[in-house]
């Protein structure tokens, strides 16, 4: 189908965008890459009266590395992450995740901020942000506020963003020495929505797991931090048999629901299979 009627605005600055969002409130939606929003419009799942197109706001794009973090602007496109030497060097987890997102033509338009603000439970980048302990930078009428990834994802397509606010960037802390990451997902075809996926980050220095953050996606209403699983692995030898012994803890961390293709039991089983594989990628 075609998108329903809407009024289109293309602000040139964050201030102009915020003024529009403040004026039109719940009747407005932000149009970033549009790779999820436009299908939702075409399906008539969403029918906002006003679309605020932020694509010409240059200040929202780009990747910056400082002494303490990597800042990814909300409008940075997946293809920019894919081609960035800074991302490959400082955020290898993100670099590993991006090729799994849809297809090249979609990655040329889709944005980092769009993916996080939409909070699709099967999306790769929200899981990476949570695994890496990123902080989201949000602008509103009263200025900027910062929201930790742990508090940002609130449920199915739900985030801590309030009406009238705009996600402007995320800051990823630079990895501490000895920290490594691994990413994997299971999908029927390349680029399809993940049946389940994992973004994992932690240290294996001295041959022991520590500080692990293992995030599952596609198995709940939001990216799921597997806290019981990580706790069971803390201080354990960084070896496949430690991972295998801790897998049963995932029963406490995950409660997947059946979807059109897989039962809940299948999803949990596949999550464990994938955990074995992906955590294997962290081993020294």
């Amino acid at each position, binding site marked *: *189908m*075609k*998108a*329903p*009627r*809407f*009024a*289109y*605005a*293309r*602000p*040139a600055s964050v201030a*102009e965008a915020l003024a*529009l969002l403040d004026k*039109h409130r719940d009747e407005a939606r932000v*149009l970033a890459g*549009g*790779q999820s929003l*436009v*299908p939702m419009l*075409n*399906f008539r799942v969403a029918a906002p009266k*006003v*679309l*605020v*197109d932020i*694509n010409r706001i240059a200040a929202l794009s780009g990747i910056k590395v400082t002494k303490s973090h990597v800042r990814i602007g909300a409008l940075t496109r997946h*293809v920019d992450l894919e081609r960035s030497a800074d991302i490959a060097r400082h955020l290898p987890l993100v670099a590993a995740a991006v090729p799994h997102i*849809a*297809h*090249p*033509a*979609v990655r*040329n*338009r889709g944005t980092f901020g769009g993916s996080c603000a939409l909070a699709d439970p099967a999306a790769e980048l929200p899981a990476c942000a949570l695994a890496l302990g990123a902080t989201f930078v949000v602008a509103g009428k009263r200025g900027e506020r910062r929201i930790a990834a742990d508090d940002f994802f609130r449920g199915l397509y739900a985030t801590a963003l309030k009406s009238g606010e705009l996600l402007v960037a995320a800051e990823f802390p630079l990895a501490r020495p000895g920290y490594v990451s691994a990413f994997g997902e299971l999908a029927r*075809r*390349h*680029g399809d929505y993940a049946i389940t996926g994992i973004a994992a980050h932690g240290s294996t220095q001295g041959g022991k797991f520590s500080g692990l953050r293992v995030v599952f996606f596609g198995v709940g209403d939001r990216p799921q931090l597997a806290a019981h699983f990580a706790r069971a692995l803390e201080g354990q030898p960084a070896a496949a048999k430690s991972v295998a012994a801790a897998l049963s803890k995932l029963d406490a961390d995950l409660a997947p629901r059946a979807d059109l293709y897989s039962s809940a039991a299948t999803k949990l089983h596949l999550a464990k299979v994938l955990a074995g594989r992906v955590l294997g990628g962290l081993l020294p």
Partner: protein
Amino acid sequence: MNAPAETVEIALTVNGERVKHTVPARMNLADFLRIELELTGTHVGCEHGVCGACTVRVDGEIVRGCLLFACQADGCKVDTVEGLSDSREIEELQSAFVLTNALQCGFCTPGILMAAQALLRDLPNPTREQIREYLSGNYCRCTGYQAIVDAIEAVAKARVSRSK
């Protein structure tokens, strides 16, 4: 431009020609090309970004024509399969598609040609696996893909051997 409006004036370059139009904001780029400019080589299949039949180039990068509103392409340089065909940029791919029988009904072919040309720009000597992965966003319901991969592989090999 700031006040929200349901119709938008746009000026863009399509296949090297400047065009100016007033379009409904809700009109997607693929429909604009087909209906307003009568460039019907860009096909509209699923209208939600899955099938790849509407693939066009905007400012040099391939995108889904159905997931971009025409008003968003204001000021952009758009290239369609007609443009790439007229400039002979995809001549070798077109010949290889004919030679290997890489199309039957032809509905997906324009989108696949656009994607294949982008692939060979980024990755001049792809493996068959990489060709398949790159084309995972372009559906073909006739050929089973084998002949399409053959055609693209043949063009890649020919181009690489020529550049040596």
